[in-house]
């Protein structure tokens, strides 16, 4: 089902951030070496939700097209969060990178589609996408270097 309303897209952002936070908490449990980093990612996800909701609740008015702003297919951004017992660190990190890619993709699309709304909303989306790009760099640095 395609999402059209601002409310739907806000809920999707919250859901994806929650799922991603869940993944990092599991990662922290399984791989204790960089536990603090993974948990900090999970905490950041909550901050992102706060920042996005603040932008939305701060500017939503009847002056813009709140019910007709988006054309987002949530299937495009779905990801698996469960870590299997056998999953190696390198595979888990690759999955983390895939999650970040999907999230960046989601926020970039949402920013593009909400350009006609007040500047705050697309700016919040872009900011989260940018921060996730930085997160990707940190994740890449954790991947074991191939011989």
């Amino acid at each position: 089902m395609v999402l059209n309303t601002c409310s739907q897209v806000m809920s999707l952002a919250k859901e994806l951030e929650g799922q991603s936070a869940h993944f990092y908490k599991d990662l922290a449990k399984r791989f204790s070496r960089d536990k603090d980093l993974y948990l900090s990612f999970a905490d950041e996800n909550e901050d992102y939700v706060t920042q996005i909701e603040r932008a939305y609740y701060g500017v939503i008015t009847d002056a813009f097209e709140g019910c007709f702003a988006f054309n987002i297919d949530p299937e495009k951004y779905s990801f698996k969060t469960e870590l299997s017992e056998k999953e190696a660190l390198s595979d888990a990190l690759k999955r983390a990178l895939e999650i970040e890619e999907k999230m960046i993709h989601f926020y970039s699309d949402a920013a593009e589609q909400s350009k006609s709304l007040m500047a705050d909303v697309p700016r919040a989306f872009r900011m989260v996408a940018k921060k996730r790009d930085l997160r990707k760099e940190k994740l890449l640095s954790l991947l074991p270097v191939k011989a």
Partner: protein
Amino acid sequence: MAILEEPIKEVLELKNYINGEWVESKSKETWDVKNPATQKLLARVPMSTKDEVLAAIQAAKEAFPEWRRTPPLSRARCLFRLKELLEKNFERLSRVQTMEHGKTIDESRGETRRGIEMVEVGTGIPSLMMGYNLEDIAAGIDEYVIYQPLGVFAHLAPFNFPFMVPLWYSPFALATGNTFIVKPSPRDPISQVKLAELIDEAGFPPGVYNVVHGGAEAANIMMEHPDIKGMTFVGTTSIGREVYKKCGETCKRAIVQVSAKNFLLVMPDADINATIAALLTSFFGNTGQRCLSGANLVIVGKDDGFYKKFLNAFVETTSKIKVGYGLDESIQMGPMQSLDGKQRVLKYIDIGIKEKAKLILDGRKPTITGNYPDTCFINPTIFESVTPDMTIAREEIFGSVASVMRAKDLDEAIQWINNSNYGNAASIFTSNGKAAREFQYQVECGNIGINIGIVAPMAFFPFGGMKDSFFGVLHGQGKDAIRFFTESKVVVQRWF
């Protein structure tokens, strides 16, 4: 998509808020407040007795001297506390609006935000209420103007924005040192009760803000009462004219914001996709129940190709609008607020058909997302080949109906707008600055949109309106509201 949690869990027995107390009405007459989407009973609202209305006026009158003496900064601090409480309760207030009015949750949140913005502007009262002066108007003589509050003001609220519209006035009235009475619409009064609960919590002194439920009788008592210094009204032109007349008879100030028939012009150089999104919100947002809604869509020019392309795109996107219960986040248009409202819209659709307008999208048999009774639901409707003399092009329908007209050029379209009895809002969609300027210059409407579907002025600007869409001198919101709620006292001073 799941339905968001409903904040009203049981049937509420609504009370009046008089002199800082919640008072049960002695009236035996009550109205049922129903959720227009589900038809569930939400509340019973009393038609207050004359004594109860008089008690509210008396309380507001008695509270005035002390409130007036309260420094503007202290009054502003009450509004700051209210703003904080409104933010804290933002989502709950928004969902109440959806439950009692039917609008979508995005629309309700928009309404809550707009209401809060009025409070925010009111907090600036120490600056906004300053007068002005000039030294030496003659040798050693100075002259200055002081803005002073007048006393008790009352507001008769409409049903279409049950939370926001009273806030177009009350923060300005209270900030300037007046006291205030609201009579909510009996169709959806719960939002005003929830607001009054927060006003109480914010620490406004007893009697400064009061809520009295009721209908025409309560309104008449207020309009005729000599202790009420001014009234604000939002509703239909026919009732508004009476309100304005009665206020004149008792020498009250009045802001009367009434009906509309808003034209939206699309020029051949308009950005089609962006324009259509704006039109959907304008024509079908709030299910067309707002004075800033688009009513007549005028496609300008002789280019048949553009006309067909634009109209097809508009009809196609409109036909996909999801209609249902506003607490379902996927819903883009809620039900009409009442069965009466729906019947009025159906009546106008019949008139349009009889007048030979071409019904190209028929919303009479609604397709509803979810399992809800169709009592108040109606789908978007579009008429083509509408001419300016047709009833559906002239009279306010106040529902989800778009009348598509075709003008040969901008001059003809402007002439149609200016021939209308109403003058609330008009918009042009174009990428041509000259056309936009001409439109802004020539059109006799109080709110002009250039590539904007809903021309809703922000809290710090006045809400315009002309002709049969507004009766009064000063408008609501912005500096106009500060002037409306204050008297200008002039002092000429010399010291020997």
